[in-house]
């Protein structure tokens, strides 16, 4: 029977990874989403497609390129040497970087859509009343786009909780460092511990259900999820 000890470490790790990734992506994705929503740059849509790539690419592709890039022969090795390690793989930091790429579109897309819906008149009115662009952005655009932010936060968090393929390729299955819930379930199945796999999976199904319900309720409450 599954004990709390069995699942505690992967659980904490998964929530940490998802939280850290979500917070960092909030900061990274917002300017990207704003730019995509407001610019007329001719390469806007190809760039948007680049951002959206992780939605379409199999996670193993992302993981494959990361295992190469994170090693001593790639940029990851350089970064890791800052703290005396040879590689970014097999570390929580490495997983965060992998997750940032893996979940990027899940933060950018909803926020971009919300920004696109921000009333142009309101922003112009703010400008005529003497607001700087920065003030207009923080006092008008962001509140207007609140639902997009909520959606992005929830989706990014949930998507990172479910991450498997990328972690499988670059994680190394280290308890307390890279062994997240999805890997723990996979291990239980591989080892024939199916009862344990059932319990853990059931927990994740419940979690996923809660997330989807919350997102739908938010959508109804605040209006549009998509343009």
């Amino acid at each position, binding site marked *: 029977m599954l004990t709390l000890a069995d699942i505690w470490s992967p659980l904490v790790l998964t929530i940490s990874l998802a939280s850290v990734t979500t917070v960092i992506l909030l900061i990274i994705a917002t300017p990207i989403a704003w730019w995509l929503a407001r610019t007329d740059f001719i390469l806007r849509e190809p760039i948007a497609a680049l951002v959206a790539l992780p939605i379409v690419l199999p996670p193993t592709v992302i993981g494959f390129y990361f*295992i*190469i890039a*994170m*090693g*001593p*022969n790639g940029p990851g*090795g350089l970064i890791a040497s800052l703290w005396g*390690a*040879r*590689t970014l*793989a*097999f570390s929580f930091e490495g997983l965060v970087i992998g997750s940032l790429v893996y979940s990027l579109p899940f933060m950018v897309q909803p926020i971009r859509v919300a920004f696109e819906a921000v009333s142009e008149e309101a922003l112009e009115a703010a400008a005529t009343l003497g607001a700087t662009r920065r003030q207009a952005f923080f006092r008008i655009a962001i509140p207007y786009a609140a639902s997009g932010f909520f959606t992005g936060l929830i989706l990014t968090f949930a998507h990172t909780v479910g991450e498997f393929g990328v972690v*499988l390729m670059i994680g*190394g*299955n*280290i308890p307390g460092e890279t062994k997240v819930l999805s890997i723990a379930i996979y*291990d239980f*199945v*591989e*080892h*024939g511990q199916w009862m344990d796999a059932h319990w853990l999976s059931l927990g994740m199904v419940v979690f996923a259900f809660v997330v989807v319900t919350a997102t739908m309720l938010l959508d109804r409450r605040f209006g549009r999820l998509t343009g």
Partner: protein
Amino acid sequence: MRFLRRHFLGLAVAAAAVASLAPAVQAAGTVNAAVAANFTQVATDLAAKFKAKTGNDVRLSFGATGALYTQITQAAPFDVFLSADDKRTGVAIKDGFGVDGTEFTYAIGKAALYSPTVDVTDGEAVLKANAFQHISIADPKAAPYGAAGMAVLDKLGLTDAVKPKIVTAENITQAQQFVDSGNAEVGFVALSQVIGKPATQVWLPPQDDYPVIAQNAVLLKVGADNQAAKDFLDYLKSDEAVAVIKAAGYETN
């Protein structure tokens, strides 16, 4: 055009009927084989030779023995199972997935410590020095070569010292990938995976340090009536196949 439109349904059915005849027209048989990851290269060679000899196709699926067996218990359509150990095939028969009396040892594997960057001629010293940051070992519960690696560490009294540096790979193919990509400096793999490498890159632990890796094959119930599958298993015992298996770094009975 009108003819096509009018009789589209009838033509579609006719086309489907013709297409469904195609497999029956095939003279050669097909074998679906679940093969332990360490035997990847050899199995591919043998499959090609078997096809040249008999015209039968062998479709190979590779993976960690434990993972493959899990799939077999869930009715994966495999005719034969080439395990990396001698336990899972017995379990297959006991659990009703394998055909009694068809189990045999097709190869005896040797574990190897591998590093393209660290000189492991004296592997024991390298392990004891523990100077590496990561050592990659296949999941010992799913891959016998991973269990062999753990056994070697145990024998040398290094388990506790090395444990924090262990990176657990899904199977020994991934164990080698972690090493080849430079992310782990050393790793335990099967000799067959690194047979052509320079001597400084490979260390063979003494056989006494780890349990004998007798790799057994078994005919699965799914393939009980598949003559090509039975022929393939027989082929593995043939002189031609044994020569290939030995050249790849295994021993045979």
